[in-house]
């Protein structure tokens, strides 16, 4: 089926998300839609999927104009979508999610569960997905959830499959499998629209590339284009893909985490006997697939959650059991993973957001009263220093773009003298310019001698920033490796493979992205072999469950 978008325009108030976008997806091709976060890719796809009504322009299926009043119409026309945030009901089973909206029924409207299971099995077997139709979604890892989404689209006879940032949540090995699935789908005649901002994946899999910038199509490219070419098309200027940073000079160890264990209300071990150190002037990145205990780890350090055992010391002072205010006062700076809900208060002004944790101290407070003049003065200074793009310091934080919100958070956290900086997903969803800025500031903080802990699910970010990498899997640290460790090794460890096995398996089987890494490194130095372990990995490791999939 041929799909064509002509002159699609969509505005939200003053913001033009899509500006006369034209796009043609030929039958059986993998068409990559490349653009930065915020460039308007998702808006375009939501228009195509019937979730938004375009202000202008039209959609043609096999050269016949169609209008979609809702996703139901789009699906009926053969368009399926795998959303970046999965559209699966967590408390339903796989089969229930797959048939939702077009359920097979027997008399009296009761769902025909055997038929529902059969539909799942059929597609699952055809592509070798190994998905249990009766498993509950909330119990499945994200990679499997994504397959459920694909099954869901295919079971509705989708002929065009839209994948919105599908690799954001995957390990390199899972990404490789996804690329395999995409090729398989293409063989069977399904067209794929692959939305991403990751250059390597685009080059690995796309037949054709359309680049969007600020809501406009800025051109098309061939997969043979270099990453640098694609990047400059995407961003609109030449970008340096790496972070410019000096070699770390670790000082004394001031942060010690020992035998930390967190068990949640449901009895699940979110953190299981975790121990590590962070030295001054060192960036330690905690890598791992979302939901393997990273969030809990940062929250325990900050005092938002209580561990059942273990200790966290900063400069020899115990942090566990102290209030969040005490921990902040001890010099911990915290950048939460969800900036829009936990990082800023949307309905407070920028100036107010900049003193959220300092409002009770001089010079912002005098007795019980705030001193607005001092608050404003501080805001003016910070905004200039952190290059926050806004009309006024009195504007609500909700009016800022994601990148500028994150700058506000960083400005606030870095406005105190820090003894430890924890940043969770510091650049998730940001545009390239903001990413560069945030990374630079984090490295600067490190160079000032602050121990820094970064939590990131993005391997690109981990590799760009980390002096040392801890890989978390199911609440345990499965590896403690130097920065710049091979991507494939990290990916395998993120799936729970112990370091030694990971090194061996990575050497035997390179992923597409891993190969791209080696090629990228080739012009300069010879490809770095998988780094050997340095520090002996913590007393965890030996038996890792659930490796049978690998």
């Amino acid at each position: 089926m041929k799909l064509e978008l002509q002159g699609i325009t969509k505005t939200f108030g003053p913001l033009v998300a899509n500006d006369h976008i034209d796009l043609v997806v030929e039958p059986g091709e993998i068409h990559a839609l490349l653009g930065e976060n915020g460039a308007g890719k998702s808006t375009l796809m939501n228009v195509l999927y019937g979730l938004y009504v375009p202000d202008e322009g039209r959609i043609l299926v096999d050269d016949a104009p169609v209008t979609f009043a809702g996703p139901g119409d789009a699906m009926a026309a053969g368009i399926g979508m795998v959303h970046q945030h999965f559209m699966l009901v967590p408390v339903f089973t796989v089969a229930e999610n797959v048939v939702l909206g077009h359920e097979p029924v027997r008399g009296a409207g009761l769902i025909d569960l055997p038929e529902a299971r059969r539909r799942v099995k059929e597609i699952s077997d055809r592509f070798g997905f190994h998905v249990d139709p009766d498993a509950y979604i909330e119990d499945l890892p994200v990679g499997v959830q994504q397959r459920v989404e694909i099954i869901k689209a295919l079971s509705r006879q989708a002929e065009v499959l839209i994948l919105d940032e599908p690799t954001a949540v995957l390990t390199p090995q899972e990404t490789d499998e996804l690329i395999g699935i995409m090729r398989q789908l293409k063989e069977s005649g399904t067209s794929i629209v692959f939305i991403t901002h990751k250059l390597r994946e685009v080059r690995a899999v796309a037949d054709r590339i359309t680049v969007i910038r600020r809501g406009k199509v800025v051109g098309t490219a061939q997969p043979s284009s270099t990453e640098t070419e694609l990047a400059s098309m995407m961003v609109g200027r030449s970008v340096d893909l790496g972070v410019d940073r000096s070699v770390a000079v670790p000082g004394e160890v001031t942060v010690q985490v020992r035998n930390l264990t967190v068990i949640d209300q449901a009895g699940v071990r979110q953190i299981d006997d975790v121990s590590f150190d962070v030295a001054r002037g060192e960036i330690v990145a905690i890598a791992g697939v979302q939901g393997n205990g990273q969030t809990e780890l940062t929250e325990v350090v900050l005092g938002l959650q209580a561990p059942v055992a273990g200790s966290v010391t900063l400069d020899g002072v115990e942090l566990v059991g102290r209030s969040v205010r005490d921990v902040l006062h001890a010099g911990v700076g915290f950048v939460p993973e969800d900036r829009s809900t936990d990082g800023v208060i949307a309905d407070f002004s920028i100036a107010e957001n900049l003193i959220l944790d300092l409002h009770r101290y001089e010079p912002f407070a005098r007795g019980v009263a705030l001193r607005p003049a001092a608050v404003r003065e501080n805001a003016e200074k910070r905004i200039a220093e952190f290059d926050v793009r806004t009309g006024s310091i009195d504007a609500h934080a909700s009016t800022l773009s994601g990148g500028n919100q994150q700058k506000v958070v960083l400005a606030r956290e870095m406005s105190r003298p820090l003894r430890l900086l924890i940043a969770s997903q510091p650049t998730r969803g940001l545009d390239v310019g903001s990413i560069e800025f945030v990374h630079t500031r984090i490295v600067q903080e490190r160079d000032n001698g602050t121990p820094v802990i970064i939590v990131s699910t993005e391997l690109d970010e981990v590799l760009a920033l980390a002096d040392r990498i801890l890989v978390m899997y199911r609440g345990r640290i499965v590896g403690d490796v130097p920065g710049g460790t091979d991507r494939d090794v990290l990916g395998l460890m993120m799936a729970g493979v112990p370091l030694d096995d990971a090194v061996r398996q990575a050497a035997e089987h390179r992923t597409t992205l891993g190969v791209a890494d080696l090629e990228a490194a080739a012009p300069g130095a010879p490809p770095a072999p998988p780094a050997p372990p340095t520090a002996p990995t913590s007393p965890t490791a030996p038996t890792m469950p659930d490796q049978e999939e690998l």
Partner: protein
Amino acid sequence: MSAPTIDAPASARPASAQVLPPIRWHAPIAYAAVALVGLVVFGLLGPSGETSTFGISTSRDFIQFTPFSVPSKLTAIVLCLGALALAGVSFYETRRREKAGVWLPITYGVLMVFAFLVWAVAGKDSALPLTGLLQGSLFLAIPLVFGALAGLLCERSGIINIAIEGQLLGGAFLAAVVATLTGSAYAGLIAAPVAGALVGLLLVLFSIKYVVNQIIVGVVLNVLVIGVTSYLFSTVLKANPDTWNNPPGLPVISIPVLSQIPIIGPVLFRQTALVYIMYVVVIVLQIMVFRSRWGLRLRSVGEHPKAADTVGIKVNRTRLRSTVLGGAVAGLGGAFFTVAAGLAFGKEMTNGKGYIALAAMILGRWSPKGALAAALLFGFANNLQLQLSIIQTPIPSQIMLMTPYIVTIFAVAGLVGRVRPPAAEGIPYTK
């Protein structure tokens, strides 16, 4: 309470994988404490040499059982010791980090209730009618069952229905008026859901179209229905009660054979049409909510509306329908207050039952059969208070009046444990 730990130095255990979550002793301690208090108050300090008499059969039963008597003090002691033993089981299982089955709290509750009853009726001449107690419990549970079902229909779709109280009251009012005007109790039964559905419609209109906070709309609607019905009551109904407010009662229909079963026969099968409708509604909803296409869509809308939208389910339309349906169910429950017993409508006669129904819905974990069980528990507590105030127990009636609500608070706070309401409950869906 437990033995002192002598083996303290032995705690040099391997560091990994041995850390376990702290054991929560709340439940066994509470069981033991209550059983001990019962043992002392009902048993050891209880009246000596008295007997407690319980009746089993009603006068219309086919097989008659004579009332039986038990020695009060001894029986209470035995029952409380039994409860204490269960507390011991609870200690044992908690220590072994096992979860006790649901039989434990139920058995414990039955034992303690009986111990209390034995003590309360000790030395009374009249027998405490057990069948009557159960029959009355079911009777008083009717509005709670309908109310709780209404609540879960709305909340499963993501709309919080605080307006159950108003829907019950509206149903009671319209049922009384229509039944009086037509002279038919069944006409009243048909009219009641209409009133409830109208309140539901208002709730969903403000919630979806004007995106008002659902709890606030619900509370305001309750006040509105109280105002409207009280106004009409004072101006129209009171002026001419025979024309407007003298509804006939629903006849009691005995199901042949089934109603002759001792104890449960008269309780379950010698009832009005409203109760038989209730059985049907509970069973049908239990199946439809969890097994049908309609139920799957309903729940998807309440759990993850965007996911439902992306597969072509109209979220707000689904919510509208289920809320109106829920309102109708609650309205039907309102008929209990008037036509079910042939009572005239009175100001604010629902008396907070809508809120208790909400508690029954939570205690029943948003499932129809759970709502039924929870409503029966509340109905029992309510009826116990009525029965005991009739036979004049040593407890002040004000305290007895509080029991249903105390039971409600404890039930919702403690017994339910961790419950998970529908994820998108109370959150308006806008694109």
